[in-house]
């Protein structure tokens, strides 16, 4: 759904603790529990790196003195991986050398705490790191959100879409994508003014938020054009969704111009399994369907199933 960012904020932040000492994990669990954190435990560098990707944390507490993989190496890995590079890391260390502090900060740690640590102090440092994490998240999401509607913007779609397609190919999952374009929108603006046009755009955004599910990605691509990515959804189910949106939108009464309804044309492409199209080919196909929808009279959904024939035969 458009604002999955906000939903993520509401869930408990995850704190990943990478330390070979069972005592550290125990003590941190006792001290950090009141913080409303979900603590994830890793007893080695390699285990920590795996968990950092599979269970994305909001903050990492990293011990430098581990036997297997050197803490600095773990830190380097965390910062080089795009999936984890923006997560604040607090380094824990029993080592005394000032050079280690410099190295830790140089490699990208946001804080350095020496062991044995004061657990109250550690707690407030973790809070500070979480505030930082929340700000970073907000910043990166701001850049990808449409100001008028609160939906994801085109930049987000461009980043997200190729990932979804490759996920579909790699795991054989269903995927559908729809492009929506309002009909005769220009005339709404011209006849009733831009505030009226804005209200209609916002109205479409509301419809999308209402109809789309948590896993869907609803984007405003620009002007009166929208796109919806529907992971794990075949074209039949996507068609039902798009029809509901189309009908609800058509029925909607606009306070500024109750006599004038607005409709939308929709080009939809979907697959029940690993489609062979590239990300660009999907978009082209959806665009073509949108064009057909306009050409055939507007206010309709034109859909294509791009499931490979072999898979269709299997489904029988």
């Amino acid at each position, binding site marked *: 759904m458009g604002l999955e960012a906000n939903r993520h904020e509401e869930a408990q932040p995850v704190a990943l603790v990478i330390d070979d000492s069972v*005592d*550290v994990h125990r003590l941190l669990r*006792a*001290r950090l529990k*009141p913080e409303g954190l979900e603590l994830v435990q890793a007893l080695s560098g390699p285990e920590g790196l795996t968990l950092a990707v599979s269970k994305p944390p909001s903050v990492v507490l990293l011990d430098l003195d581990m036997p297997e993989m050197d803490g600095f190496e773990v830190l380097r890995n965390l910062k080089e991986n795009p999936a984890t590079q923006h997560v604040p890391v607090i380094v824990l260390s029993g080592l005394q050398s000032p050079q280690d502090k410099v190295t830790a900060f140089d490699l990208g740690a946001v804080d350095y705490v020496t062991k*044995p640590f004061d657990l109250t102090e550690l707690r407030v440092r973790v809070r500070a790191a979480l505030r930082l994490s929340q700000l970073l998240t907000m910043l990166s999401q701001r850049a990808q959100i449409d100001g008028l509607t609160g939906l994801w913007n085109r930049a987000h779609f461009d980043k997200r879409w190729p990932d979804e397609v490759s996920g579909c190919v790699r795991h054989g999952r269903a995927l559908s994508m729809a492009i929506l374009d309002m009909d005769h929108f220009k005339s709404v603006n011209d006849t009733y003014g831009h505030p009226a046009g804005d209200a209609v755009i916002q109205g479409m955004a509301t419809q999308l938020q209402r109809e789309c599910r948590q896993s869907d990605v609803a984007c405003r691509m620009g002007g009166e054009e929208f796109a919806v990515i529907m992971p794990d959804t075949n074209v039949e189910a996507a068609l039902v969704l798009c029809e509901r949106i189309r009908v609800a939108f058509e029925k909607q009464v606009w306070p500024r111009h109750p006599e004038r309804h607005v409709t939308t044309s929709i080009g939809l492409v979907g697959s029940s399994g690993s489609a062979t199209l590239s990300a660009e080919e999907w978009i082209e196909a959806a665009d073509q369907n949108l064009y057909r929808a306009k050409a055939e009279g507007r206010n309709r959904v034109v859909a294509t199933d791009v499931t490979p024939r072999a898979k269709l035969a299997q489904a029988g």
Partner: protein
Amino acid sequence: MAEPNPSWGALPPLPSLYANDPAMKEVVEEFIGDIPERVRSIRTAFESGNRVDLTRLAHQLRGAGAGYGYPALTSAAGALEDQLRALSSDGALSAVAQEVDELIMLCERASRGGRSGSN
């Protein structure tokens, strides 16, 4: 060193600084429950001349002690670890017998002190 010193029973128990802290009660009790095992490992390492293990055990207790509310354990374990690291490569562990004794004594007192005063 093979047997606990009988005079230790006369020494007072060593409670955790956090014995009455509701947030810490559970983990302190867990720690106290682990003490006999830790002491066994320390004794075994010392008696078998296993310097590496003994150093590691001292290091762990040094790091953990204060966190559980036993700064005295951190101190004693730290002293043992420092002495071990200062030993020459062929130095005998008997050189640190006193530090080991002190540490085990404190552990024994701590294992008796956890439940006093906490409800």
